[in-house]
């Protein structure tokens, strides 16, 4: 690394800010000013501290923080051939790992359709998503669909929070505020103040089937879980086929492609096949005490093709049902006209399910709003 002294004039800092902006750092005029002020007040320092100074002034999240050093190197190491404002071409292979953000908070655009997710159906299908790169799903309009779904999910969550507030308006008299308001009137409580009930926030638990038969849907349903987790505060997500894996933390990352990459790693070494009952039993044992309460809405996303014992499934569902407020089963197959929930697993499960609804397209997922 050439240790050339970078040019620290205000002009070159402005130029660097513009370069950083083209590379995906969100640098506004305020940050630029802050950066210039910072370098001026820190005085004459070595290159390292100069880097730290610009970094603390210009970044504002871990993602930007991690990206910064590359940008700094790219800009100041090529002092011969510094990119002019706006031209911002990333150094090959160095910063191209991260595309500039198209806009804030969008699902990563996954327009490139290079490989196809292999569609395998049947509960006996082996090795479902072992190391399969999720972001290579080859539907041309997937990106567009995602944009739309993101918007709709977001609107849905906004509506939900408003609904709560209106429902919980006035409830009982707030003595403290009533007294407070009576002071200008000599202590007579003429105007009563009311106290709304604290909005009850539900906890969502998402239990997503990724066995072979669910393949056409599961990738999209993971996105649904991602969206829910983004807009609802307390969501815990789990994947299952024969095992249960918690993916709450993976979905909590900001970018969907990051999340999907994390998922494909976490799910490594899985074998296909569905054992809903056993998975649910695992879940109840490991997480049940922590996550299930009368405040919880439990959402199962599965087609109900079960290779385990239906008695087991029924018993576990019963156990879960007793502890949660609502048990919702979303079945993608319910979208098919000729489908009847008569498989052994499904018919064993139905008595314990509060809401049995389809989940084969965006519309059906959005209809879920009514039950949350």
């Amino acid at each position, binding site marked *: 690394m050439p240790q050339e002294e970078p040019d620290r004039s205000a002009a070159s800092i402005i130029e660097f800010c513009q370069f950083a902006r083209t590379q995906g750092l969100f640098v506004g005029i305020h940050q630029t000013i802050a950066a210039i002020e910072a370098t001026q007040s820190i005085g004459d320092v070595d290159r390292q501290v100069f880097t730290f100074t610009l970094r*603390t002034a210009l970044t504002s999240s871990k993602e930007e923080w991690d990206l910064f050093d590359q940008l700094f190197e790219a800009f100041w190491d090529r002092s011969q051939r510094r990119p002019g404002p706006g031209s911002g071409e990333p150094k090959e292979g160095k910063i191209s790992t991260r595309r500039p953000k198209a806009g804030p908070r969008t699902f990563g655009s996954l327009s490139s359709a290079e490989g196809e997710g292999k569609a395998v159906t049947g509960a006996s299908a082996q090795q479902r998503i072992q190391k399969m790169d999720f972001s290579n799903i080859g539907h041309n309009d997937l990106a567009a669909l995602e944009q739309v779904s993101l918007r709709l999910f977001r609107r849905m969550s906004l509506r939900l929070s408003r609904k709560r507030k209106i429902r919980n308006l006035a409830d009982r008299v707030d003595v403290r505020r009533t007294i407070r308001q009576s*002071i200008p009137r000599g202590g007579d409580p003429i105007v009563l103040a009311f106290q709304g009930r604290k909005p009850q926030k539900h906890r969502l638990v998402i239990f997503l089937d990724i066995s072979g038969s669910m393949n056409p849907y599961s990738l999209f349903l993971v996105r649904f879980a991602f969206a829910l987790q983004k807009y609802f505060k307390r969501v815990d997500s789990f994947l299952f086929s024969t095992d249960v894996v918690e993916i709450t933390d993976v979905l909590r990352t900001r970018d969907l492609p990051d999340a999907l990459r994390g998922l494909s790693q976490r799910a490594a070494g899985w074998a296909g096949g569905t054992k809903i009952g056993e998975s649910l039993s695992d879940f109840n044992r490991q997480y049940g005490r922590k996550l299930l309460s009368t405040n919880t809405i439990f959402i199962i996303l599965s087609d109900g093709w079960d290779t385990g014992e239906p008695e087991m499934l029924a018993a576990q569902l019963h156990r879960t049902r007793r502890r949660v407020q609502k048990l919702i089963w979303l079945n993608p197959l319910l979208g098919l006209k000729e489908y009847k929930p008569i498989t052994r697993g499904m018919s064993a499960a139905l008595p314990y399910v509060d809401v049995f609804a389809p989940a084969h397209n965006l519309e059906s997922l959005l209809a879920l709003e009514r039950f949350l």
Partner: protein
Amino acid sequence: MSTSPTSLQNNQVKDVDTLIEAFERLGYVTDRALATSVYLVIRLRKPFLIEGHAGLGKTEVAKVLAAMLGTRLIRLQCYEGLDVSSAVYEWNYQKQLLAIKIQEKTQQAVEEKEKHIFGKEFLLARPLLQSILEESASPVLLIDEIDRADEAFEAFLLELLSDFQISVPEMGTIKAKHIPYVILTSNRTRELSDALKRRCLYHWIDYPSVEKELKIVRARLPGVEEELSRQVVRFVQAARQLDLAKPPGVTETLDCALSVMSLGKHKLDIQTVEETLGCVTKSMEDTAKLRASGIERLLS
């Protein structure tokens, strides 16, 4: 406090290295990156947002800064549902009621009575207002775990951080005499609003390197034996690679070393690890994971 020998006036903090030394005298081992940020906070008086995993000394930065400058530390712990009456100010209703009763028989005009009961003595200043009312010197205002508060509160904070004034409808606007040093910490349980982030200097605290962590252990636990500190640090650093739900922070390292010392042991062996495992992992799942990956392997 300002008489303590370790405290410096803010104009005495001449450069980044002075600051590193001053922090180290107070038992806080820091690196140049963090020191640069803190130095700029002192110089530019901009709010400072520190993010990072739990147990890496985010809160400590504010405490040490206050100790170094010899000023007051005012702390606001955020939580879901934090509202203005517990963060900014509230009227002391009981006292107001009593005052009304006492005034009942007097001949004062209503306006005068009202003015009296909305005076300063009836105002309960909560942390944010306190930080603005400070008379003698700029305090350090620590807004801890801002990610736990809801977005409405964040918006309110935005207003405060740009003007450093608070308006109380009954009294008028109170402007800060000394602009506080504001430090916000976040564990990243949710994204903060862009507007707030843009206003702050930013620092991401990562897990320390082996050398830095050793230095921290020695600074915080002066009695620790050389070999033991090495073993504990190596063990915790290895545990961090395990993809645990809650990777151990520096706090856990210190806890672990301290409990081994309290048990009268001088070495970290498998049995000692078993006995002090609760210091490092904080959930059943993590403990199981740690055991499954082989404690012996982690120790070597």
